[in-house]
């Protein structure tokens, strides 16, 4: 329903955004807690320990418990899925039983690793991989169409020479699959304790981008200085020569916000 213009409330302007920025009181303890949460959840025990002492705060988990999760991550990164599964079962015996999808993802990764280690040339013997697939994965795949599809796709790897792999199958051998599975395991181990699966830091980044999008949807101009991440390029310019590939444009924008924020 239309209303007379006299009642319309003031539209926030660029000015009010700057005012808001000035008003925000960043709490150092919030920031430290945010970072500690990250180190804990993402598994950096020695950094967490140092940070606790340097920032004079309490660690959120013990170094040992972070270390247990790190060991699982490293086993998966190495491709040693068997030992990862054993460690998970030690840490949380019910987890894989309850989360069949996660269990299947691990087993399938194990199959991929078997295929990789069997070699992918016509002269290699694929028997261990086939045995594993039929005993461990086959029965589970029957219960779930998605599992079945994933299994079939994985088995297709055996039909190709490694160098001839079509791109859609090559991704299975990408190490990224290990990273993904390790991340899912880590999140699952955490979801048991707290509800959120992501780190606070990650949530905050999502919130920033979400808010930006809403801002733009509301036809509001988004000032360049709101791109906090440009600070990275800016700070890395002087001392980072390993190819951060910060584009010239980004760098120019970054130096300007730095100056503006400083006033704030």
């Amino acid at each position: 329903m239309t209303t007379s213009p006299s009642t319309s409330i003031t539209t926030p302007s660029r000015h009010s955004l700057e005012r808001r920025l000035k008003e925000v009181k960043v709490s150092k303890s919030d920031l430290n807690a945010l970072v500690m949460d990250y180190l804990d959840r993402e598994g950096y025990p020695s950094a967490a320990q140092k940070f606790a002492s340097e920032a004079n705060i309490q660690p959120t988990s013990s170094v040992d418990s972070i270390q247990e999760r790190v060991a699982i991550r490293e086993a998966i990164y190495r491709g040693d899925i068997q030992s990862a599964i054993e460690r998970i079962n030690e840490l949380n015996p019910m987890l894989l039983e309850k989360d069949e999808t996660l269990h299947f993802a691990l087993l399938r990764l194990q199959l991929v690793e078997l295929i990789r280690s069997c070699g992918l040339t016509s002269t290699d013997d694929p028997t261990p991989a086939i045995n594993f697939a039929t005993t461990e994965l086959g029965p589970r795949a029957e219960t779930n169409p998605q599992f079945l599809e994933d299994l079939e796709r994985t088995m297709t790897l055996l039909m190709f020479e490694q160098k001839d792999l079509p791109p859609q199958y090559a991704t299975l051998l990408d190490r990224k699959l290990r990273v993904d599975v390790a991340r899912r395991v880590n999140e699952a181990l955490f979801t048991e304790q707290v509800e959120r699966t992501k780190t606070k830091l990650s949530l905050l980044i999502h919130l920033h981008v979400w808010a930006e999008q809403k801002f733009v949807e509301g036809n509001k101009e988004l000032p360049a200085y709101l791109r906090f991440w440009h600070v990275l390029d800016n700070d890395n310019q002087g001392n980072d020569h390993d190819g951060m590939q910060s584009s010239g444009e980004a760098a120019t924008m970054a130096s300007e916000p730095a100056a503006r924020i400083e006033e704030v």
Partner: protein
Amino acid sequence: MANNPPYGSSGPPSNAYAVLTNLIPRRSSYASVAAGNLNTYNQSLISTSRPGTFSHLANPNSPSPSYSHDQHSNQSARRSHRSSETDTHMHDNASVPGSWGKGSLGNDSGQYGFGQFYGMAGNEDDANGGDFFVPSYLRHSKHVERLHQAHEAKTTAQREAPPTQAKGTGALSSRSSNASLPKLAPSHRGMTYEVVEHPPPEDNGGLTPLPSKWAEADKNQAIEIGPDGLEVHFVGGSKMHDHEGAATRTDHPIPVQVGIYYYEATITSKGKDGWIGIGFSGPKVSLERLPGWEPESWGWHGDDGNTFCCQMTGKRYGPTFTTGDVVGCGINFMTGSAFFTKNGVHQGNAFRDLKDINVYPSVGMKRPHAQVTVNFGQRPFVFDIDDMMKREREVISEAIIATDISSLHSHIDENSFVKELVAQFFAHDGFVETAKAFADEVRAESRALEPDVDMSHSNVSIEEDLDGTNRQQIRAAIMDGDIDKAIKRTHAYYPQVLRDQSQVYFRLRCQKFVEMIRQTAELLEPHPAQAAKPLNGHGEGHMDAGQTEMEVDDPKNEVEEWDKMEMEEADISVKYTELLEETIQYGQELKQEFQDDSSREAAFKEIFSLFMYEDPRKSPQAHLLDRASRVPVAEELNSAILVSLGKSSSAAIELLYQQTEALVDILAEEGGAGALINVRKDFLR
């Protein structure tokens, strides 16, 4: 007696030395001042010319009207048309137990300081001063959190102002009314200086309180408001024409910043034919109509169950309502829609396209014996609005998590991006050891994944950071209170910083002065309140059960403590005088060095006011002596050094936090989805 400033019990000392030697004997007058009457105290302060030393240091402008006077006049100004009941009223309230601080944020139903409506029904502008309630569905609201903080700050200030003044805030008092200081212009904000340990009150002008009751000044004369401010009944005649009615609005408009607003009305008596309208309307809408009949007004009418949207013609909506029914009215500012409920049941959307509206809850009636009582959230609602709010929040939260953030890190994957943020934070804030450990672990992680591949191209590289170590040492020196060391090191490593950034240099110098004051004060025994105690009580005094909150427990002080115990009383006295003289000399040099810069006045006044107190650790300015006060100094210097190196003054994560809060705030300002987000509560806890 009782009216003397601390330094003036035996007449104002005539020179600096007199101030020094008088410091200790002053104790008795201090106590008497503490017990004294504040108004007369302030007056006597004005008539007393400032003693020698202090007037050199502080602004020599003669103090004008006393603080307490200012404060009251501002209070009354805020109470606008109620100017006659000024300070006495305020103090009366302060002395009534339970008058203040009822209904905290976490409150559940039932604890809402409700009785205040009766006690203060005549005092309209006390709505956010006396009673404060949080409707259960708005417990997460950032806006309500702000209102709550403002309310707390205000009540705390009111509660604490008298005793604070009695303790002798002479310097501050005259300062806050000193016309030469634009930043401290006489306003109620002056009060924030008195209660600095509390969050400063929000500027109430910028915050719209929640509607809390019907407004006497905004009702039709055919309506009478009950003593609780919530009940209204019709007192007009029975001869109203069809197009006539009588309506009322609330004390405050609905703040769109809450995202969703909801209130309920119980029809205690339908009147002759149930001709009652429940809804909301703009501030200028005629009160001689039912809500919905005029432009800028919307309502649901009990006689026919129709909704009316800015016109006399109704639209089929829901059932009729009558005596005993509870009718709820909700506005969703995020979707621009409104709905009604009846006895806890949602009746569906009633209005759409409500854009840029500024409305008040409103009810209207037109037949004798009609009576309605509303609930603005002081009590639990019949309809489960909490659940609706929860679901809305979940939807938003899912959308946030589902947001694609790849635009932020086009050149690397998300994990590496976040790692970079974290690494930059450590490097920036000078967590050198953590930065190293993190870099090592990140490298180990990469090696575990791909032992054969050189990962350096896709990785966070944190080199041994000499610069970081330097900055860390400078920070550590400030945190230890060793400002000289910090200045020396900064000079050595970053000579341009202190040269170019005079503000930072000035702050360091001021901190040095504060540290000197603190060292001097620590020679006093720890309990200035126990005036009768001789000087030698200091050693164990720190340890016993009566220790004060001013006690500082860092290791350095323990050493000093030990040194002190080794000294004879006489030595302490000599040392005290020496230190005090040194401090005063340092202060004078400081003043001289920066005398041309009028922008330093406020800072000077603040730190030099520490001289006013026999034991500054017990003064209202004691926060300056806190270890925590070193943190901002250390951070400002760190930022200045980083800027001088061409880097950002804030870590990326800090900017992320700051920007996100600001963005969400702006989104909330228009009642958008941001209104349902409380960044700290939802994302940082």
